[in-house]
């Protein structure tokens, strides 16, 4: 509240106009032959003074409101518990498919595929619900939200504002997904997002995806170097659907599957890495809760406080003054007859 800046300070040059009501206009007075024999009336003088004051206030506050007063954008250093978490969420079309029903092991394998298409919740919906709950619970963490399919799309930069994050998550549910999954590019962009941020607490990239990709050697090197440089831990919530391989298969022939290849690559990283394989909804919930437990370190961060506009207050004052002027006008005697 201490410092106020004006968006259009030249408008303040008009402020002397607010003194116009103090000039002697003739229109609003009734001519009277001789005032000296009438009684002096303190209440009337007060009413006239208030009338003029309201007129001046109305004009002055309109002019000030036009000048656009506001508290300038500022930065505040805050300390919190927790981590900086970059949620990297897959928006490819496969995420629109269903999760496996919780009793899938008991279903006859012949109809399992069909069951999996029609039963169970949508993967992206489940992921979104859980993430939104996760974010809502961890109010001390700072989250950033990035979607990817063919390319990355930063939805919400790092912030602690729950409302913005929830809106971002909701936005992820709009429309259908695209048909590509470019994990390499998305990861690189997510790592870059940490680049120019001071290290103020533990950093996590939470990759929410149902598929992997083969990464070329150059990309792999850049990802490994980036994670090491920015000291980022990588958590992979792997939403396993039907016909997808499990991550923990030891068989070397499964290298061909992109998910396994990605998992193997992540395992070679020097930075911390954890994979959570979620087949059914409950697995996913458990995985999210586990991530929550992992990171609870003090966190310093700078928060941008956006510019705050004071114009509505001035307009409110002006509206009130105008209303009072209207009342004054109604009370005013305008002719002798």
């Amino acid at each position: 509240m201490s410092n106020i800046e004006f968006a259009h300070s030249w408008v303040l040059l008009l402020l002397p106009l607010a003194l116009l009501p103090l000039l002697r206009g003739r229109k609003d007075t009734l001519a009277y032959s001789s005032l000296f024999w009438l009684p002096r009336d303190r209440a009337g003088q007060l009413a006239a003074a208030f009338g003029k004051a309201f007129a001046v206030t109305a004009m002055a506050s309109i002019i000030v409101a036009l000048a656009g007063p506001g508290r300038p954008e500022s930065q505040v250093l805050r300390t919190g518990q927790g981590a900086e978490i970059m949620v990297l969420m897959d928006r490819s079309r496969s995420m629109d498919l269903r999760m496996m029903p919780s009793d899938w092991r008991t279903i006859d394998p012949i109809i399992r595929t069909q069951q999996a298409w029609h039963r169970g919740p949508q993967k992206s919906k489940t992921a979104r619900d859980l993430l939104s709950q996760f974010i809502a619970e961890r109010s001390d963490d700072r989250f950033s939200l990035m979607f990817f399919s063919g390319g990355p799309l930063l939805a919400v930069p790092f912030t602690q504002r729950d409302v913005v994050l929830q809106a971002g998550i909701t936005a992820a549910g709009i429309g259908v997904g695209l048909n590509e999954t470019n994990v390499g590019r998305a990861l690189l962009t997510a790592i870059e997002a940490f680049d120019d941020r001071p290290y103020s607490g533990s950093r996590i990239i939470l990759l929410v995806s149902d598929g992997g990709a083969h990464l070329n050697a150059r990309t792999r090197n850049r990802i490994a170097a980036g994670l090491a440089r920015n000291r980022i831990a990588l958590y992979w919530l792997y939403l396993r659907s039907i016909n997808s391989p499990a991550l923990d298969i030891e068989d070397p022939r499964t290298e061909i599957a992109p998910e396994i290849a990605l998992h193997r690559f992540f395992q070679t990283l020097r930075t911390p890495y954890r994979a959570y394989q979620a087949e059914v909804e409950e697995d996913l919930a458990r995985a999210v809760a586990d991530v929550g437990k992992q990171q609870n370190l003090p966190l310093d961060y700078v928060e941008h406080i956006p510019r705050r506009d004071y114009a509505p207050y001035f307009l409110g004052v002006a509206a009130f003054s105008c209303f009072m002027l209207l009342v004054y006008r109604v009370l005013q005697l305008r002719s002798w007859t």
Partner: protein
Amino acid sequence: MSAQQEFHYRLSRRVGGHRPGAHAGTSLGTGLEFAAHVSLFDRPDPRRLDVRASLRSNRDEWLVRVSRQRAGIALHALVDVSASMSFGAPRSKLHIAADFVEALGFSAFRMGDLFGMLAFDSEERTDLYAPARLSRGASSVAAEKLRTLETTRAGVAGLEQVAARVARQGLVFLVSDFHFPLPQLTLALDFLAHADVVPIVIWDAAETEPPTRNAIAPLEDVESGSRRTLWLRPSLRARWRSAVEMRRAEIEGYFGARSIRPFFVEDGRFDADAMSRYFFEVV
């Protein structure tokens, strides 16, 4: 214009002047009022010879009856045309003054007296001057001038000039709203010491009676330009009325000290019958 209003007036004292008229005069001449017996040698008019008085006379001389002649007078209306007189709703005070002037001129003509009008604000208004004369239409012209007058100037300083010009015997009507400090009248009334002065106090109903609506009234004085805002409410109305009564008492007291009774016109029209009654009561 409605039917011509007429009122009857008379003077409290004898007036001089050789023009015959309707008022008790001081000059001798033809008349029914016996004044004295004088010697035929002093007044050689054998038609007025009084035989009885001559026989009774000790000095054995012929006496002639001498009587007083009734005199005609001049009536002057001194009309205040300062800006405050333009106030009034629905008719301005100046209109009421014009009605009075018209009735005065008509009455004067009927009595065989001269009618003249002088107007003043901060100085004498020679453009409204009507010299005293015996004329049936002079007052209508003068009244019409008053009705169409645009008044803007403040002050009554011209009163002394016009009073000096009519400072002789006769009847002088001082037509004003008397919205000025009364001591300003003193010099003018001294000039008019030989005349019978009748102050006609014209007040508009809007001045004496506050508006009935409870409202905020921002008022501006038409003469001084000063402003005052009143919040009309019952207590203020009472103060307003008492202020008017105080002013009335003040005016009556001021003129009463000179044995003059003011005549108030307050109900928006000039009442000639009330004017006649005034003269019956006062004189």
